[in-house]
């Protein structure tokens, strides 16, 4: 009698249907790996059409992005070197840390009409807000609520002053940027609106409206700006903007916005207080005036990237077409099988 027991393995050991007491497992497409499947083959047709589709989609997107970016008008003015008076330029650190008057006058020329709102930024270079010790030096719970005022352990060395906790503690708050800018056009002052410069989520959730600055900048070393102790943190927008630590060592932060149009040819007089010490680490400070588009500020990268990729894909589609014409290979040509090409050897 033939065997009437069967064991199955890997799906291949089914017992005979004709035998009694079959131990065949229940058939299902899943366990027998016979699910309906799409079996794509990357034929030349597919390759070329994919490239064409990608280029057809990407090139218009690139054009749109580039137009958006080109519409943005941006004025950048580096002032950290020029705002040190000539005699003090040999020892800038001493100047900035000293008591000399730090006011500085700069002139900006508008080369193209700028529609309001015009955003005023300060840009810092070589300032590592993404340094590990810096990023962790804050206490979010303290920022949210006065109940957690004493949770300052992560804020060393700027955690307390004379036994009392500093609010807001930490190096990030301590190093708050403190250059100020006063703008005027044709001797009429330009109002810079400093409201609404921080993300709403920060203002409403991360920084409490019952938390007030305490003991701030009371130590020997002053790192930056002081804070008005009567204004709750949720309204200290400069602090909020500064505490959203930047990703890279070159970054911009929003200072305020101008709500009048600037015309071509306008000269803007900037009276700035050059307080912030970037000279100890060879950092740069720049003042930026910029309009925005729906896509943001002046950053051609997206537009150029889309256009480049779309162009490359188009070029590749052509190149592949030529390649397939010059060196054709019949689809499914058995002569390409390694045992037909090279009997006894192969790939």
């Amino acid at each position, binding site marked *: 009698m033939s065997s009437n027991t069967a064991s199955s393995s890997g799906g291949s050991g089914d017992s005979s249907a004709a035998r009694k007491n079959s131990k065949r497992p229940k058939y299902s497409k899943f366990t027998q790996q016979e699910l309906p499947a799409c079996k794509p083959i990357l034929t030349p047709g597919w390759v070329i059409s994919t490239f064409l589709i990608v280029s057809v989609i990407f090139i218009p997107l690139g054009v749109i992005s580039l137009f958006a970016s080109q519409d943005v008008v941006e004025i950048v003015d580096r002032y950290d070197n020029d705002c040190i008076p000539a005699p003090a330029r040999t020892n800038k650190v001493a100047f900035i840390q000293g008591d000399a008057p730090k006011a500085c006058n700069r002139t900006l020329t508008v080369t193209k009409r700028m529609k309001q709102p015009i955003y005023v930024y300060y840009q810092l270079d070589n300032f590592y807000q993404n340094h590990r010790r810096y990023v962790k030096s804050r206490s979010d719970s303290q920022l949210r609520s006065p109940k957690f005022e004493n949770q300052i352990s992560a804020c060393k060395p700027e955690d307390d002053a004379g036994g009392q906790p500093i609010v807001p503690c930490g190096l990030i708050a301590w190093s708050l940027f403190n250059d100020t800018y006063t703008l005027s056009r044709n001797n009429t002052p330009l109002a810079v609106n400093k409201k609404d410069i921080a993300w709403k989520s920060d203002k409403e959730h991360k920084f409490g409206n019952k938390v007030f600055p305490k003991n701030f900048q009371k130590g020997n070393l002053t790192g930056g700006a002081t804070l008005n102790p009567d204004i709750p943190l949720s309204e200290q927008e400069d602090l909020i903007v500064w505490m959203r630590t930047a990703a890279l060592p070159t970054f911009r932060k929003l200072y305020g916005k101008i709500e009048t149009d600037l015309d071509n040819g306008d000269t803007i007089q900037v009276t700035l207080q050059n307080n912030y010490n970037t000279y100890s680490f060879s950092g740069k400070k720049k003042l930026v005036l910029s309009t925005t588009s729906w896509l943001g500020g002046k950053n051609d990268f997206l537009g150029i990237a889309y256009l480049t990729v779309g162009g490359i894909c188009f070029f590749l589609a052509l190149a592949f077409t030529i390649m397939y014409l010059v060196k054709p290979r019949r689809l499914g040509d058995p002569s390409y*099988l390694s045992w037909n090409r090279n009997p006894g050897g192969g790939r």
Partner: protein
Amino acid sequence: ELFRCLAICHTVLPEGDESPEKIVYQAASPDEAALVTAAKNFGFFFYSCMLSCFSVTESTGKVTSLVRKGAKKITLSIGDGANDVSMIQAAHVGIGISGMEGMQAVMASDFAIAQFRFLTDLLLVHGRWSYLRICKVVMYFFYKNLTFTLTQFWFTFRTGFSGQRFYDDWFQSLYNVFFTALPVIVLGLFEKDVSASLSKRYPELYREGIRNSFFKWRVVAVWATSAVYQSLVCYLFVTTSSFGAINSSGKIFGLWDVSTLVFTCLVIAVNVRILLMSNSITRWHYITVGGSILAWLVFAFVYCGITTSRDRNENVYFVIYVLMSTFYFYFTLLLVPAVSLLGDFIYQGVERWFFPYDYQIVQEIHRHESDATKADHLEIENELTPQEARSYAISQLPRELSKHTGFAFDSPGYESFFASQLGVYAPQKAWDVARRASMRSRPKVPKK
């Protein structure tokens, strides 16, 4: 067919020297001599896979070990009885046949099958698929982790080498657990380069495993280059384009916004890569790829939406919502994964055209055939050929009770066919005659 020719078991006594090339086989009859000669010929064909001969003594175990150590080939041995246990254990791959002679062979073996002819499926179909799947799964794991880690590595250059993490802790930890885990499992379960019937029709495809075509250093290098390229694209494109204002109200991104955007692009690119590398895409592929990306988004929504008093200081509260409120996010999300995968796409297009693998040619040859899965299934289900069905039907007659001959491989008539192919005269055994008689079109009373 090839394996059917080898499916013969008779006593062959090997006399092994210490140098395995000089194993002399003492055959009990010219019949077996023909078998052994042919087996050796087939051994050359599968030059790194050799079938051991079957014997009633334990010396087959010694033969196998000799071949294994001396010739340095991968050995596979197959047997069904207790006498085969030593041989099964000595070989690299031991296959036991559960059957007449009990389960000892099965218990000692790596694989157990029910009939000898399932060996074709085991080797040519499932063994081959298994090799392909393992290679792809391993390569994909290295690739996805390399891509992920390299983005962080590029970031360290811009943090003053202070060791600041690029991604939030939980994003990082769950990357391998939730956001990229399932698609590769589905790939490992269902990947097939050609269907089962084609695998058996082109047994030469097995050579790709022998030659280790899918896991050479060259393959590893290609995947590693792809990982480096993709990590550079994800990192550089996002960090360069997120400088300055990113929406119409002039606001600026912070570190966690940028890193979450990079992470999102990375998760999408790495998951869609599975679709590019699959030869057969089932609906589970779509479900797991889409599901993983969706899982990431849902997790980000939840994680970024809640704050507790026990949050760490560098939390990513509201980051994903901030990101999604800008047009910039969507533009980047379309660009970055597409550019990341473009490199691989070009490579695959060129490689398939100019340097195709064998399985790719076979795929193309049979590209118009519908999914013959039903036919595959029927082939196994209906495993009794008409002769065998008749034989079985006859065996149900009372007088067929003692058909058992003590050998597992009930393949009557084959050795004579085989011998006749080689032009060797093979005297017929009594039991073969009986069996062959029962397989003729008109049922005959078997002589015993």
